[in-house]
């Protein structure tokens, strides 16, 4: 066991993949000498060479589009998109090419491409640097979408993503890059919890609280605070956003009868809506109250002096828990 920051844990996972498989190549802007703007690829070009860790021109569509060609030739490209807000120029290549190639070729051409996206807010950045675009991709069949919430998962899940024969979007919560945690670098990839599975972070019996990525920590803090008030909250880290491990969420809701979902992304058409609808379909009879969503607002990501109002925090989550429990909350007395 070693104590690593989130960023170092991903770095260690990338290193391991580069060592284990000569077909793995990293591509992105500034990922070489600089080690990426968040230093996630620090030292990798020095150790593996410019052909395995490629500093690309500034062209997002090309980063993904050339990865498609490399995958055609049997490579496993790992692309870094520098910031969430810069993934849009590559959107076409991701949804029209990467996602559909296996289907279009009737399974003959595999696209084992991993797309790393530092995402989410909370670091006081200018515009286009704090977005949560995950729902665009969970809506696209052919892609697997995961989000990591702690250094151990970051380490194993990046390797699982790279080893996957399907394309994977790997969302890294950038505000957690410097958080430290225990990482077992000897962890065997294939006995480690699959990236497909959700994980119960802390068990509880009154309310199920679903989170992923940057908000898992916030959700855990909220659960701790709730327990001081005698409320037992079960926190679930989704880990996989597409497909979502619904059986895991379902099992929890059958036990608690209540569901709160939290994410930074805007509410409308977001993952919270999908989870609320799917869980309602699957276990309506077990629900004691309507599912509650605590999310970012339906606004462009705001300037940084206001982002703390936009981002779900511990108190807003607790307010949502109160709503699910029918306790007094900020919306008490409101009809509809």
């Amino acid at each position, binding site marked *: 066991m070693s104590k690593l920051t989130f960023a170092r844990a991903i770095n260690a996972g990338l290193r391991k993949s580069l060592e284990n498989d000569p077909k793995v*190549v990293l591509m992105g802007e500034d990922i070489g000498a600089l080690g990426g703007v968040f230093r996630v690829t620090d030292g990798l070009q020095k150790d593996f060479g410019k*052909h395995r860790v490629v500093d*690309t*021109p500034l*062209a997002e*569509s*090309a980063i993904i*589009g*050339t*990865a*498609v*060609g*490399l*995958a*055609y*030739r*049997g*490579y496993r*490209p790992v692309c870094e998109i520098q910031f969430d807000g810069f993934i849009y*120029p590559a959107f*076409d*290549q991701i949804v*029209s*090419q990467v996602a559909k190639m*296996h*289907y*279009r*070729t*009737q*399974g*003959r*051409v*595999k696209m084992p491409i991993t797309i790393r996206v530092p995402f989410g807010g909370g670091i006081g950045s200018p515009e286009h640097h704090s977005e949560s675009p995950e729902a665009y991709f969970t809506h696209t*069949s*052919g892609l*697997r979408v995961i989000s990591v919430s702690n250094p151990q998962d970051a380490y194993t899940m990046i390797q699982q993503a790279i080893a*996957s*024969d*399907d394309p994977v979007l790997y969302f890294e919560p950038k505000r957690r890059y410097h958080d430290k945690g225990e990482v077992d670098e000897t962890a065997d990839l294939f006995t480690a919890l699959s990236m*497909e599975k959700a994980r119960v972070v802390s068990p509880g019996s009154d309310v199920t609280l679903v989170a992923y990525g940057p908000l898992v920590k916030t959700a855990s803090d909220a659960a701790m605070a709730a327990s001081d008030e005698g409320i037992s909250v079960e926190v679930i880290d989704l880990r996989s956003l*597409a*497909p*979502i*491990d*619904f*059986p895991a969420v379902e099992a929890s809701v059958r036990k608690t009868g209540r569901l709160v979902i939290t994410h930074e992304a805007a509410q409308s058409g977001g993952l919270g809506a999908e989870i609320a609808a799917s869980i309602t379909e699957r276990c309506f009879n077990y629900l004691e109250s309507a599912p509650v969503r605590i999310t970012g607002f339906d606004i462009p990501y705001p300037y940084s002096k206001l982002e703390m109002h936009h981002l779900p925090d511990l108190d807003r989550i607790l307010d949502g828990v109160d709503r699910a429990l029918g306790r007094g909350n900020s919306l008490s007395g409101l009809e509809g």
Partner: protein
Amino acid sequence: MLTDKAGQDAYKAPSPGISAENPRRTGGNLVQLISPEGERISHPEFDLWVSDVTDEQLCSLYEDMTVIRRIDAEATALQRQGELALWPPLLGQEASQIGSGRALRDDDFVFPSYRDNGVAYCRGVEPMDLVRAWRGNASSGWDPYRHNIATQQIIIGSQSLHATGYAMGIQHDGSDSVAVAFFGDGATSEGDVSEAMVFAASFQVPVVFICQNNHWAISEPVRIQSHIQIADRASGFGIPSMRVDGNDVLAVLAVTRIALDRARKGGGPTFIEAVTYRMGPHTTADDPTRYRDANELEDWAAKDPIARLKALLRTKGLLTEEVEAKTQAKADEVARNLRAGVINMPDPAPLDLFNHVYSTPNSWIERQKDHYSRYLESFSGSTQEGAL
């Protein structure tokens, strides 16, 4: 056949090849080796690149062009008869596709657009497999790795990046094969084509961009796409380019060989503009009389790529009755088989819908597949009830 087996070039690259090392831009002058009247025009540099082409091979180029034109006509007819949902005719572009397609080596890898059926034919794709996707029976007709040609691309320009990425892989592998992207003049306006040229030039990868300038992007003339000659675009990216008469199969063969040779020798990317003309509609869904002048078509019909080669063969005394009969018989046979194959093509099974979305199981899709199959099964019961 001119297509080479991996590792053995049928022709000897002229050396020291001025063109190979520095395929200079040809400015407004098209590289041309056969005039529209069918005369062989000699050229001190480019002749070297086709000096190995025997009389027999000239006849085989004629056969290929005739057969692909017949496949195209048959597919167009099948669409008109409701057997295909749509078809993008290549009428007029036979020389640019066969000339370039026959220059390739087996281990080169092609990324084509929807119109490049002639190129696919050169790669050995079966005529039936060319129409499968247009009938709506499969998302793609062939296995890319069997023929070293990706499936057809509909998103304009996208494949230029895939070819460049593939070429990055070739470079990484230390192989001397080449990736080739085919696209139209309209595609050069797309960001992806520019980005592909940036990557190709920056990394000096073995990729050849072949732009068939057929003068139209659906209803938009090429002057809406580019204020300068399309071949001139490449120089801004640091990529040498050639402008070739795309209706001249020998000239297209020569310039493609130059570009391939350069790529194989580590000389990086080349851009080829094959100046040709789409004589039919964009697809069977459009009506070119709405947007283009009949005179224009007439002018270009006079430059027909097949008539031109035919005239050359005639002058050379190669177009014997025997050659002509053999060529026509082959075209007839291919067309007959294509028609029978299309009409008898079985429909896919409903649950194929869910296959190959992922290469490993996915719980969302499996659930939906399971639910839908139960739904379908529910009908087998009710049909029986209805029969009682």
